[in-house]
């Protein structure tokens, strides 16, 4: 579905819309934590977008955003309860960041920006896409940070780089900043290259420029 595809690249919440940055920096020093955070966010964004959309005609206009926060908070608390019960170690490691999903701009952004004026089915896909787009970016960053910073991947030591001196900066917040900035830089460059070639291609072919 094009709604999904759009959220993965062209309107990717992290490197295009620059949303959800705090958690992107905080959890990406470990791949495992990133995955759990990603799943939590996908779950929350997809379901809260679906719910907000389903209720959109009946929610009083003036309390629209309060209701969105209520719905988002409810789903996030469910994620926390689930983690506390079945994954207590990860819950402790993620600490406050699970609760902070409520404040993650992506969730509220999709709820107000899309779900409030679209059908439940589409909103669910949109939320799903936003969550997957976010998780994709975070996983790529984590796959660089964890091996370089801790010498492990998903908790397992990597034999090949045993001798490599750990880059401690990758474990702490500044490492996250740098990695994210590099990612945005590369992604934007790739995007512009694609656009530039598309435009150049159109000029040479003397065809009508394709409408998006």
């Amino acid at each position, binding site marked *: 579905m094009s709604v999904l595809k759009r959220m993965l690249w062209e309107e990717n919440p992290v490197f295009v819309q620059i949303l959800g940055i705090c958690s992107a920096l905080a959890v990406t020093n470990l791949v495992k934590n990133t995955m759990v955070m990603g799943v939590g966010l996908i779950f929350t964004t997809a379901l809260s977008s679906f719910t907000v959309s*389903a*209720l959109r*005609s*009946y*929610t*009083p*206009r*003036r*309390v629209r955003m*309060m*209701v969105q926060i*209520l*719905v988002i908070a*409810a789903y996030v*608390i*469910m994620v926390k*309860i*689930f983690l*506390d*019960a*079945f994954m*207590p170690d990860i819950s402790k490691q993620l*600490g*406050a960041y699970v609760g902070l999903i409520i404040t993650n701009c992506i969730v509220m952004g999709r709820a107000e920006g899309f779900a409030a004026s679209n059908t439940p089915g589409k909103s669910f896909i949109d939320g799903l896409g936003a969550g997957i787009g976010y998780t994709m970016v975070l996983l790529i960053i984590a796959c660089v940070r964890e091996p370089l910073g801790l010498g492990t991947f998903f908790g397992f030591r990597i034999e090949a780089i045993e001798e490599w001196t750990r880059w401690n900066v990758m474990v702490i917040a500044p490492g996250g900043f740098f990695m994210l900035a590099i990612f945005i830089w590369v992604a934007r460059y790739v995007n512009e290259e694609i656009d530039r070639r598309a435009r150049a291609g159109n000029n040479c072919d003397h065809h009508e420029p394709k409408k998006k």
Partner: protein
Amino acid sequence: MSEQNQDNPGILAKMRTYASGHGNPNMVRLYTIIYVLVITAFFGGAVSLLNSALIKYKLENEKVSQQQVILKLLGLMKEDQDLSAKDTASIFEDKVETYTVEGRRMKGTDGKSAEYTYYGLKGSESGLYVIPIWGDGFWGLIVGRLAIDTSKEEITGIDFVRHEETPGLGGRISDEEVRQRFVGKSYATKDAEGLRIDLVAEGTAGDSKTKVDAITGATGTSSGVEKLLNAGIDLFIEIRKGGEK
């Protein structure tokens, strides 16, 4: 959704009108209030239900986690070691002696008052004990476990199992590096101010056997910890002297 389980289509249409702000202003206000109450009750109820269904797993995890804290402080388990709930329970059963002191109270890990309990190694005269320490921090109650070697009158470990201190500042008492600062310190004598262990400005403790580097920027937390640490040790010594085992 519960709001849509109505048979009369007229009501749904009316709800949509009020939702968009049109119609009788009083009805719009009334609808808004009722809607917010209903939806809060619905989602609040759903979350509460899930919580009650899963709470037993959380409590079980808490119990295992606490046992592991004690095992680590007694040297029966390594910091990074991964132990299953069953293994934790069986090691605890076999190797840890639990002592409760009637007539003495302490604050448990849940923050509530409980019977004074401390732990030692079964069948060993090593003098290694894990005692409870608690007191007010900067924001709220701090509850900790102190591991001491009574034969050397030294601290061998510390863990803070409950606190509400500022993350990054007072919250650093949970950090491995900060906890290490207490290891090897002697509580044998009281200084002029009646302190066995003195928390001093970060960096000034040096090689002192009784001074511990506090946390810069967390003065409230540090002085709270100093108080509760000394009080906890004093209390334990008093209990042991009185033979209240």
